[in-house]
């Protein structure tokens, strides 16, 4: 009988083999060649059974339902296709998609926005959708807001078919405005009497210590996002040539100082501690603790559901000597390279971005649809609440987005936000914060551009 016992040496040899195998697997080149051209992707379409997966972030019930409907519509149109969604929490999106692509099993379509589009485009992980559109008689980009297509196009390539956009506006509590003896806000983005001075005066008139205990009970405004004001003031985080930090420009410094003063000098905006204790901007607004706040169109859905809340929207106020800025975040869907069949992905993408889907964006999700005629129809502009929905749509000619350079998220979260947070807390001057952030921004850019 052969000796079945395992010698220590043999055992260690076997173990080393297992570990080595695992190591090699871990170090193996990633699957999915990102160099493949759009037209070469996948097999031609056939009647063979196909399973498609659309990748999304966000797991709210209305999102899931919307995506289920899109998948069903795909199967109805193409009975041989089984379509499904893969929805993950927003914080896990990058990790999940990268892992799937690296493992050679990318989704067939994936959601993209101002954060993820630059990153994945920078990684050359997305297909240019223009050739698909050109070859498809059913599809045209003309139905979308041209500015979205223009802003999304880089070096002749477009990787996202847009679905919705979120122009930032001022949400305001009309009841509090009336209590303070204020008129409704203008609805015109061009109106230069609605400027940073009148905005501050309005915020000051709304800020109140109702019970006289020395603590502010109602704040005039709250700015969860500083970037739109930077742009309104004529500044930006990057220089025009995107080679260095732009925060040191006089316009940027003045805009950031004005924002810091809102909280630190004028006391019209709550501190982070107060916000944490009271809830989100929307919670504060709903509770009547904040009279104005800035957000995208996503505020509509939640606020519409609050009974008895009398609210409306107005444009972002203009800075002196600056044109109107309709800062927006748009989102849509793209096709990852290495997908099983780019042609089927394109078909799925068309359904995700079509007219019926845009109506869902308007009515169920509450964002502004990317299709202009849907946005301006009764499906969005014609809805009763808020009464001045046109403000969202009228921002289109002034549409601006944040930089589309690939490392923008790292620039923001690594270099700029920690420093600006100290300035907004009053622990550092704006000049010092910008001076500290600048070299970090420059370093990230130098690495990116290979300088």
């Amino acid at each position: 009988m052969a000796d079945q016992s395992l010698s220590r040496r043999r055992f260690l040899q076997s173990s080393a083999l297992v570990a080595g195998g695992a190591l090699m697997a871990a170090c193996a080149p990633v699957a999915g060649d990102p160099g493949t051209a759009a037209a070469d992707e996948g097999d031609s379409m056939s009647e063979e059974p196909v399973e498609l997966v659309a990748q999304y972030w966000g797991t709210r019930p209305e999102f899931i339902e919307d995506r289920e409907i899109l998948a069903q519509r795909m199967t109805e149109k193409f009975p041989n296709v089984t379509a499904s969604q893969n929805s993950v929490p927003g914080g896990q999106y990058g990790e999940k998609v990268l892992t799937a692509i690296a493992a050679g099993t990318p989704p067939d379509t994936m959601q993209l926005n101002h954060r993820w589009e630059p990153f994945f485009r920078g990684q050359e992980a997305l297909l240019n959708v223009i050739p698909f559109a050109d070859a498809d008689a059913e599809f045209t980009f003309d139905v979308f807001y041209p500015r979205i297509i223009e802003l999304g196009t880089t070096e002749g390539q477009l990787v996202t078919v847009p679905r919705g956009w979120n122009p930032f506006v001022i949400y305001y509590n009309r009841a509090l405005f009336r209590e303070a003896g204020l008129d409704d806000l203008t609805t015109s983005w061009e109106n230069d009497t609605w400027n940073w001075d009148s905005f501050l005066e309005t915020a000051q008139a709304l800020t109140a210590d109702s019970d006289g205990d020395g603590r502010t009970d109602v704040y005039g405004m709250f700015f969860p996002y500083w970037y739109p004001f930077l742009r309104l003031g004529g500044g930006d985080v990057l220089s025009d040539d995107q080679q260095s930090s732009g925060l040191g420009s006089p316009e940027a410094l003045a805009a950031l100082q004005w924002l810091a003063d809102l909280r630190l000098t004028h006391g019209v905006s709550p501190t982070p501690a107060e916000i944490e204790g009271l809830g989100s901007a929307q919670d504060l607004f709903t509770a009547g603790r904040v009279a104005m706040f800035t957000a995208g169109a996503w505020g509509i859905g939640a606020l519409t559901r609050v009974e008895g809340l009398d609210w409306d929207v107005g444009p972002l106020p203009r800075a002196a000597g600056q044109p109107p800025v309709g800062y927006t975040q748009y989102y849509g869907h793209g096709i990852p390279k290495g997908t099983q069949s780019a042609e089927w992905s394109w078909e799925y993408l068309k359904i995700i971005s079509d007219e019926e889907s845009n109506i869902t964006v308007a009515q169920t999700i509450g964002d502004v649809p990317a299709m202009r005629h849907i946005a301006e129809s009764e499906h969005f502009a014609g809805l009763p609440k808020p009464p001045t929905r046109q403000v969202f749509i009228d921002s289109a000619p002034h549409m601006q987005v944040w930089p589309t350079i690939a490392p923008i998220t790292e620039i923001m979260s690594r270099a700029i936000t920690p420093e600006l947070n100290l300035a907004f807390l009053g622990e550092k001057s704006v000049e010092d914060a910008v001076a500290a952030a600048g070299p970090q921004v420059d370093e990230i850019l130098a690495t990116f551009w290979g300088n």
Partner: protein
Amino acid sequence: MRSRQAQVGQTANELAAGKRPRMSGIARKEAIAGYIAISPWLLGFLIFQLAPILAAFYISSTEWRILSAPEFIGVRNFDKLLFKDDLFWQSIKVTVIYVIFRVPVSAVLSLALALLMNQQLAGRRLFRTIYYLPAVIPLVAVSMMWIWIFNPEYGVLNSFIRLFGVEGPQWIHSSRWALPALIIMSLWQVGTGMVIFLAGLQGIPAHLYEAATIDGANTWQRFLKVTLPMLSPVVLFALVMNVIGSFQIFTQAYIMTAGGPGNATLFLVLYIYRNAFEWFHMGYASALAWVLFVVVLVISLIMLRSSEHWVHYEGRIGGA
């Protein structure tokens, strides 16, 4: 077949010659059974820990953004983190301060609690449970709770401080107080250390105390001359585990402060995470992870080496 005596004689000769003795049949079978018994852990360790650790070492010498193949760049990641990255040194500074304050204070508190819980007190089982409870509550839930405790406006801590007519600090909303806040929060979980020390205390033979009492030792002397030496192996274990755990602090900072304000709580593991999963610099993150590994390894080795001078192992021949 060789006689048993011959085998023993051969083994003795091999030992004398410094050779490893050949295993007997029974010993070999026992060894195999042992390896089989530990194989689930061993395989798990090799595949899911050792292999990724070695892979990370290779990755640390590359620039790897996941979607393209890793590009070998030699020691450039280490050069960058050591000489060009202020945030790395900030994360080291924050982490070391945390370890320096947290480890000794929590060790003293754990020991004090364990001594208290080792007394014949009414309801001590209840108290043991109460003190240990925080250690079994998920850290995410604990963090959410402490966010409220630390809230400068509405939190219970500043409300308490206000009773004395003093306005409390901004805690996690201040770059000066955020790190002390997380250190204070960590002490809430001294129950783990307490349980370990309690087990150690209960293993000390009563006759040693009796003998010390007969020799005229007072309570303090008994603690110093009997309890501490007898407990020293447990102290060593608790310290090493605490140091390793403290270097790995992540969840609290991730949830409560996101490393801020202004990188005031940017612990090393949080910085590794952000490099890997927010900015997707896997090569650089791996280099950072290896630095953490080496730092923890060196400190653990120093502690273990130093233990020869202060750890007392009862019954060890020729030992301290």
